[in-house]
């Protein structure tokens, strides 16, 4: 497909897609959302822009191979186990702490959030890997 409207729109929609994906991940612990949905949204953006341009072009622009996204995601998941190990709690217990910043109020951070980001990257990587593999031959 070679539509100028779609190509230009993609550039501006990038912010919307990716920030929505991030919000989905962060609110996911207590509200609908989460790593899986966030990852799918982020992958959706890339699917969308590969419709506007071409899969090969997007693949070149992406620079990082999808395999490495999967690796990064798994690494995040592994790191999210570490706080529970260090504090001596049972494995994978969620450890939370609150940052009291005067600008944006209280922020709760915890190991489940890191795990969610792990899921986010893994799902994104897997979806992109599927996309690139299945659209490899023309």
């Amino acid at each position, binding site marked *: 497909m070679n539509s100028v409207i779609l190509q230009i729109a993609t550039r501006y929609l990038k912010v919307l897609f990716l920030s929505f994906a991030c919000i989905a991940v962060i609110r996911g612990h207590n509200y609908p959302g989460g790593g899986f949905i966030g990852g799918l949204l982020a992958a959706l953006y890339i699917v969308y822009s590969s419709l506007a341009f071409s899969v090969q072009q997007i693949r070149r622009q992406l620079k990082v191979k999808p*395999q*490495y996204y*999967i*690796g990064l995601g*798994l*690494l995040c998941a*592994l790191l999210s*186990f570490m706080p*529970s*190990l260090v504090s001596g*709690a*049972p*494995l*994978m*217990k*969620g450890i939370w702490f609150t940052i009291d910043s005067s600008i944006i109020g209280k922020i709760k951070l915890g190991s489940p959030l890191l795990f969610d980001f792990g899921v986010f990257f893994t799902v994104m990587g897997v979806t992109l890997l599927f996309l690139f593999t299945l659209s490899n031959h023309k």
Partner: protein
Amino acid sequence: MTLIALPILLPFMLIIVLVFIRSTFYAKIIGVIGSALLFLVSVYLLILVSHNEMLVLQVGGWEAPYGISLVVDYLSSLMLLAASFIVFAVSIYAYRFVKAKRGFSMFFIFFFALTMGVNGAFISGDVFNLYVWFEVMMLSSFVLITMGAKKEQLEGGIKYLTLNLIASLLFLAGLGLLYGKTGTLNMAHLAQILNNDQQSILMNTSAMLFFIAFGIKTAIFPLFFWLPASYHTANITVTSLFAGILTKVGVYTLIRFFTLFFVQNGYFWHNLLLISAGFTMVIGGMAASIQYDTRRILSYHIISQIGYMIMGLGIYTPLAIAGAIFFTIHNMVAKTNTFLIMGIIKKIKGTFYLKDLGGLFKEKPFLAILFVISAFALAGIPPLSGFFAKFILIKAGIEDKHYLIIAVAVLTSMLTLYSMIKIWNQAFLRVQPSKTKVDERVKVAVFDYLPSALLALGSLMLGILAAQFFDLTLLAAKQLLDPGIYVEAVLNTMK
């Protein structure tokens, strides 16, 4: 008790490392060292279990009926030990026998994903968690069995995928019905509920679904057709790994489910298990004896041997279950080794077909010794492990007056011996047929024999230390036949 999760976490870490490593050399090194570490971990877990009876970890600190429990008892730790021993041997073997186009890290990623799934299935204490580990195992086995992506592998892969997929759908359906009726999926909690419940009619639907699902995974009598259709198409390294581990995970789950919570209505289930065990043994053995492709002989042979394990479960006395566990572990080691040896033979002679083989006894006497050890262990010749395994099972059967199945088991032993002697005669003893073209340039290094020698040594040790090992399996069996211990350990851990 975080250590319990290490058989899952270690392969997970190895996968992460391997994703970022592109160099074939380092991937191989990491693969071998990682699986050696895994073996050490499982040895340590067995030592811990022999001190503490049972190890329990409530993941995330959520208490037992609500969260996921990881449980290691004697059965789990013995299976872990055997599986990681095989994983170690096969990872060395892969060093020389896998030709991966995109580098070794790809192969080892799925190799360790499979290991993670298998280990997870062994230590999981939750039915749904077990399902997830089965899926991890299954997806990585799909990738491994189609590795190479030639026509044969794709064909075998489609057959393998279809039936295994149906099995896991049935597993999920059984699990859903079980949850609907009991409101829990924690194995200990299920055992507590179902052992005090006489309404077996309701349970039988999901028990039957589980039986069929695991029956397909285990390749027992009416459900085994995927195994001989797909195992001979894959790379020989993959086939030996699958032959050693995958079907035995099914055996493990059958033993776990039918001793822990599907215990009402025992008469029906034990007879069903015995009948399918008998047919599995005979049909597998007979089908093996008419094949000429060594991989197919051994594939049918896996099926025939599964019958013995199910027979042990069907007789259902402590001795019989100990025998089944002994047999499973002996079979994992010896069966993998025969496949590894067939791979070496293929490398030397360039073929798997018996009609083209010959003269190996004179050319490679050491290989002949390795084959004799593992093949005669499988057939059950006295000083080797298979003899003791079969002896325990048959003794248990006679004590419990199951004469028919014993007769079948002894008869099948003859069939096993026949097909092993067939390979021995055709491939090793007789003179090489003149029409076979052997590529003389192929050199087999000493290193190629190493994993096979390791497994042969394991098989020998199982025979020599049979008494000590039998004590362990008997402890495992006693623990299994008293679900109270399991329930107590899982539901009352306050950590």
